[in-house]
């Protein structure tokens, strides 16, 4: 059961999950705002990932330097990370007991 749940948690977190991908039509500032909101939600749940804030900072810097394409790329990655972290937090909140190794 634990292995099934571990696998499930991994599948849920796969970056290719369509529900986690950012909308392509978003403009950079909006994308950055969405990424920041997702990061904050993950942080509030105690599950923020290591690099999300760095990616958002880099996206902002790229936007300031006029590099829109690079900014979008970084913000999209940050958004995916933020959303995956939220999914991870909610999944673990319900299922952490199933992760206890069998004795």
């Amino acid at each position, binding site marked *: 059961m634990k292995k099934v749940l*571990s696998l499930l948690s991994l599948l849920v*977190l796969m970056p290719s999950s369509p529900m986690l991908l950012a909308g392509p039509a978003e403009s950079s500032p909006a994308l950055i705002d969405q990424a920041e909101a997702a990061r904050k939600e993950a942080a509030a749940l105690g599950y923020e*990932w290591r690099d999300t*804030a760095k990616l958002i900072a880099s996206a902002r810097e790229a936007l300031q330097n006029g590099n829109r394409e690079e900014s979008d790329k970084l913000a999209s990655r940050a958004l995916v990370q933020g959303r995956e972290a939220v999914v*991870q937090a909610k999944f673990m909140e319900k299922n952490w007991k199933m992760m206890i190794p069998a004795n």
Partner: protein
Amino acid sequence: MIKNRILRRLIPAALMVSAVAVSRPAQAVNYQALVDADTKAFQSYFIKEFPEVKLADYANGVYALNEDSRRQWQEMEEFPPYELDIEAGKALFNKPFANGKSLASCFPDGGAVRGKYPYFDEKRKEVVTLEMAINECRVANGEQPWPGNKGDLAKVSAYMAYISRGQKVDVKVGSKAAYDAYLKGKAFFYGKRGQLNMSCSGCHMEYVGRNLRAEVVSPALGHTTHFPVFRSKWGEIGTLHRRYAGCNENIGAKPFPAQSEEYRNLEFFQTAMSNGLQYNGPASRK
């Protein structure tokens, strides 16, 4: 009319039932028994995995499992790299604050109190760690808290651990609030987190004794007995929370600050799992 008659009979009966329910004393939950059962299961896991290792030896961390590493470590312990830190910690422990008092004024038994931490403070409703108590003593005496999870804070903690060697790990969980903190620590320990979707237990229970690159993965049982440690990788002494933060970094999770509620609860849970072992810090590690 009939309805009223039925109601007149039912109401006193209902009142009697509710009175009995109210007057019956609530069944007290024995939280310590719940924790003791967890500790027994936790320790049994390692006993079954490594039947040749004595329970008390888990206080030596990974060196309980690997003979080659143990020999190297024992040689290193002949001239321990943390020796100067203990001396510095002793001096800092006795150094007077501006008000004439010192850390020694805050702690009984000359500071040999490692075995009393971490504990759950029932008034404050939170876990108090040794490092937290050291800094709170400084603040209460008009000094600035020491920053971070290394340096002077780790040195004083190392000195206090050193003079407490041999004290028994005996974490008490005696209330619902304490048990809630314990459960938060337990959920942290078993929950997978970060970009690598890994947990404390994933490495330090399920992969214990196997190699992660060149290193053998250490058992979670006994982790908290020997901190603070002088790590060769750090080149200096550091606290348990510094190690927690390093682990979180490694799995791609944002670390929590030292002495955060999350890490204090984790320390509370993890130390309870080592109940019955002996404190033997500070120690040296790779």
